């Protein structure tokens, strides 16, 4: 029986429910293990003048080392793209909590006492905290990026397309960040090994990068560093690069003292010093016709990158690549710039910039519909990518969107959710209620699958078959709850025709899998699954060749023929020989094969074919394929308090042939609800000094069980046109998060009902406060709409804006 396609439980399910699945802090204390703490910058910007109390800290009983940047053996900078971030502050202070001094001690009490003795003397400067401040002070990271649809590089041609549009809108849309809030905080344990080497066990999505960074910081060769990750209690992108800092700190302490060292961040410290989903600002203008067909659009993005580059430029790139979402827009200009501010460097978070790009155009679609006085669903349908239809399938970066079922998704979902009927009911409700407003929205997602940095689209896998017919699999992929290891287990079991209980996934380690990519971009199962299949194929070829000779039966006329060897149902046999005694049990066969010196282990490699993208021109085929879907959400807003009630959600996704339907369903529901958190209640708050105020669950609201919608339908659509990727599956980790936007759009729709045609911008998240303020503004008799903010870096279409104002109902 095939294992792929079965909804088997998560491979660690039994460990999870008994408390025996160990996360980093659960690993047994090592002999003479040290506790690590650090001293962080008290200010968001300024200069470090002096560190007082270092000697006193060192003299504290139980303290084994007090380290500063001077104790690094390699260059004091790192970063996955620009390498602009110091491990430990030398001079310039860039955000509150930025590590300056690292302390290793026998006990946490001693470490904390030593930390209290250290005083950082700083000359404080005025920090840059917002995108506006960064633009004003030209504080940027990386170049100003452009992505133009063919022909729109030319300013005049682009403007002409815009001027031809019968209708235009323009505005500025803001979306806020989001805290990862992985339940297991950043954590690492380092053990000194022989000959100066070090073993780092880290809660990381990126063991290879951890290995590289630790080796550089300590002045070691990569061969002297091993990084392992047993599992994570959640990652969501937050442990793609930012797990490196804790890993470096414990490794410094371990190599300095010759003792194991562990650091597990407290929730408050983790939230205060680690990066989040980027806050964005988008100036946009859209030209369209009376049917709602978008003729030209421009999106100018600015993201708040925080103090260092981290992954911000790649995140911005994905934003720009998703500003079309599921819509074919003939003339499209997208620009982007990362802003450098004095907040902790923002980083990867499920969706990786995609959500902010998609939010921008979906907000635009609502405005287009409002101006025309038509249902936003009509506008969405009018602009959807059409498979195989010339002029309706090319993205602004040049890739053809093919083999999708967006039309069918819209049709089926509108039908199953009874969108039209409910739209009518909601209109009636809104007309009759003075205290509540309802809204509904159907919004799609089209998410590009692949790292947009080409070289990262590779993976290797090590498959070892033992003489009892059981199998161990090791890949560079890390398990953070997404079910990667469970899927890999099913894939490998099927390759050998075994049941899943005979396959085991091993701890991720750079010792077994070298030069691997982070488990990110939703591509963990795609890349590692394909690499594992390739490893299995090598072993199976050897098995077939050997079995052909072993099972050949001259008397029956069966000459050795590898093509006739089958490896299935736990057996190895020649399919011409119907005698059951001529079949060998897989384990028995493996024992025989080993005694005949057949190699039953192999390493497989996979590199995604056909992905190529030119960052300079902003054109190419960055994605192997797209995962698509749509959601309908309905909400009720209390007009007097701004309180939002999430009434109903209907989700429909194309995730290809599911390797594990239970896991995929969980990813869809969980990703969606995490997106709902981003667009409704999760609000990061910083004070004027750059200090995060929302540093725990009492001050930062992530969704809980009561946030589930009253009615919740989740379904999948078949797509026979999708004929690539491992076992014809599709990536599922990130795409459903963007379906959460349907809830924000429904909230916007409810506000629009109150607005009665007045234009307005609703910020994201639509917290109760934001909704109430927007409703309050709309209830005050409005002044004539003034000039819209200019589109940064592009000429302002003043005429377009006033034209739109004139057409306002």
């Amino acid at each position: 029986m095939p294992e792929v396609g079965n909804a088997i439980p998560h491979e660690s399910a039994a460990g999870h429910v008994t408390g025996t699945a160990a996360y980093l802090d659960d690993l047994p204390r090592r002999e003479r293990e040290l506790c690590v703490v650090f001293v962080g910058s008290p200010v968001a910007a300024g200069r470090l003048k002096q560190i007082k109390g270092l000697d006193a800290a060192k003299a504290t009983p139980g303290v084994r080392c007090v380290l500063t940047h001077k104790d690094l053996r390699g260059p004091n900078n790192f970063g996955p793209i620009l390498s602009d971030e110091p491990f430990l502050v030398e001079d310039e202070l860039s955000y509150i909590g930025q590590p300056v001094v690292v302390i290793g001690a026998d006990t946490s009490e001693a470490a904390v006492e030593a930390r209290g003795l250290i005083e950082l003397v700083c000359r404080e400067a005025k920090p840059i905290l917002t995108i506006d401040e960064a633009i004003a002070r030209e504080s940027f990271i990386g170049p100003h990026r452009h992505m133009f649809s063919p022909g729109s590089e030319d300013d005049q041609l682009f403007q002409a397309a815009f001027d031809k549009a019968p209708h235009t809108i323009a505005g500025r849309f803001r979306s806020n960040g989001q805290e990862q809030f992985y339940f297991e905080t950043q954590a690492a344990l380092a053990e000194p090994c022989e000959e100066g080497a070090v073993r780092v066990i880290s809660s990381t999505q990126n063991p290879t990068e951890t290995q590289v960074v630790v080796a550089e910081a300590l002045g070691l060769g990569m061969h002297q560093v091993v990084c392992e990750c047993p599992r994570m209690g959640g990652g969501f992108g937050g442990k793609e690069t930012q797990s490196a800092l804790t890993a470096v700190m414990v490794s410094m302490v371990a190599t300095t003292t010759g003792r194991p060292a562990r650091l597990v961040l407290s929730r408050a410290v983790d939230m205060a010093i680690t990066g989040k989903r980027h806050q964005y600002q988008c100036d946009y203008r859209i030209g369209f016709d009376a049917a709602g067909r978008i003729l030209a659009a421009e999106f100018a993005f600015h993201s708040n990158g925080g103090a260092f580059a981290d992954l911000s430029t790649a995140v911005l790139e994905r934003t720009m690549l998703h500003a079309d979402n599921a819509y074919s827009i003939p003339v499209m200009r997208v620009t982007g710039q990362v802003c450098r501010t004095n907040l902790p460097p923002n980083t990867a978070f499920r969706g990786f910039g995609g959500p902010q790009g998609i939010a921008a155009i979906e907000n635009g679609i609502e405005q287009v519909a409002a101006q025309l006085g038509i249902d936003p669903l009509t506008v969405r349908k009018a602009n959807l990518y059409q498979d195989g239809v010339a002029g309706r399938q090319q993205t602004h970066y040049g890739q053809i969107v093919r083999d999708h079922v967006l039309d069918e998704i819209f049709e089926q979902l509108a039908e199953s959710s009874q969108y039209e009927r409910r739209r009518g009911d909601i209109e009636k409700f809104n007309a009759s209620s003075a205290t509540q407003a309802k809204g509904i929205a159907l919004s799609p997602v089209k998410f590009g699958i692949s790292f947009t940095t080409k070289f990262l689209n590779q993976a290797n896998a090590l498959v070892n078959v033992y003489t009892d017919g059981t199998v161990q699999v090791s890949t560079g992929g890390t398990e953070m709850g997404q079910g990667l290891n469970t899927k890999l287990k099913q894939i490998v079991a099927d390759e050998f025709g075994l049941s899943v209980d005979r396959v085991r996934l091993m701890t991720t380690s750079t010792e077994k899998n070298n030069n691997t990519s982070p488990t990110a971009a939703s591509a963990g199962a795609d890349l590692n699954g394909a690499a594992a299949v390739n490893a299995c194929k090598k072993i199976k070829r050897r098995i077939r060749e050997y079995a052909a000779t072993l099972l050949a039966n001259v008397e029956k006329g069966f000459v050795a023929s590898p093509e006739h060897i089958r490896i299935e149902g736990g057996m190895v046999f020649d399919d011409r020989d119907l005698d059951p005694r001529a079949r060998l049990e897989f384990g028995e066969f493996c024992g025989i094969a080993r005694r005949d010196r057949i190699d039953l282990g192999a390493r497989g490699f996979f590199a995604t074919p056909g992905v190529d993208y030119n960052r300079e021109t902003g054109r190419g085929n960055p994605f192997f394929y797209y995962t698509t879907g749509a959601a309908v959400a309905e909400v009720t807003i209390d007009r007097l308090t701004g309180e939002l009630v999430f009434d109903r959600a209907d989700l429909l996704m194309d995730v290809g042939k599911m390797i594990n339907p239970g896991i995929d369903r969980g990813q869809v529901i969980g990703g969606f609800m995490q997106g709902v958190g981003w667009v409704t209640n999760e609000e990061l708050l910083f004070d004027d000094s750059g200090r995060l105020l929302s540093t725990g669950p009492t001050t930062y609201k992530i969704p809980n069980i009561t946030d589930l919608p009253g009615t919740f339908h989740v379904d999948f659509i078949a797509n026979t046109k999708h004929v690539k990727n491992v076992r014809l599956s599709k990536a599922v980790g990130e795409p459903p998060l963007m379906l959460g936007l349907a809830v924000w759009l429904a909230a916007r729709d409810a506000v629009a009902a109150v607005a009665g045609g007045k234009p307005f911008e609703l910020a994201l998240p639509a917290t109760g406060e934001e909704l109430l303020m927007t409703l309050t503004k709309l209830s005050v008799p409005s002044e004539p709409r003034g000039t819209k903010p200019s589109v940064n870096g592009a000429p302002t279409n003043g005429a377009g804006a006033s034209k739109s104002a004139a057409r306002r109902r």
Partner: protein
Amino acid sequence: MPDRFSLEVNGQAHSVETDAQRPLLDVLREELSLTGTKYGCGEGACGACTVIVDGEATRSCITSIAEVDGRRVETIEGLASGVELHRVQQAFIDQSAMQCGYCVPGQIMNAVALLRTEPQATGEQIVEAMDGNLCRCCNYRNLRAAVEQAAGR
């Protein structure tokens, strides 16, 4: 000065010499090596550290060792009898009520405490009782289904 405290954990008597203000969570994890109970926030607001004290679901990160002196504590490690899982544990597996799994021990202990007082808890009672146990994977639908299954719904 450290004091000495006696408590029963999963049916076993323990005597611990430690600071009176030390959180029960730290004692369980660091003194008794019971690492199934997790640290989530340290402010009693996420539910990851939930254990049962004298029958009541309790946040062990904001409960001092002094508060449980002489009392009976149950943790995730004590739930199964041998290889046989508690029905709530089994329901969590059946309903795939885990993704990263980190919040699961706390969720289960809270659900067990609920079902001891309300063996056939209604959907509403379940949601009300579970609303303080956060899950960042937002796997709430399956979590709800698991507790409903254990409640015979």
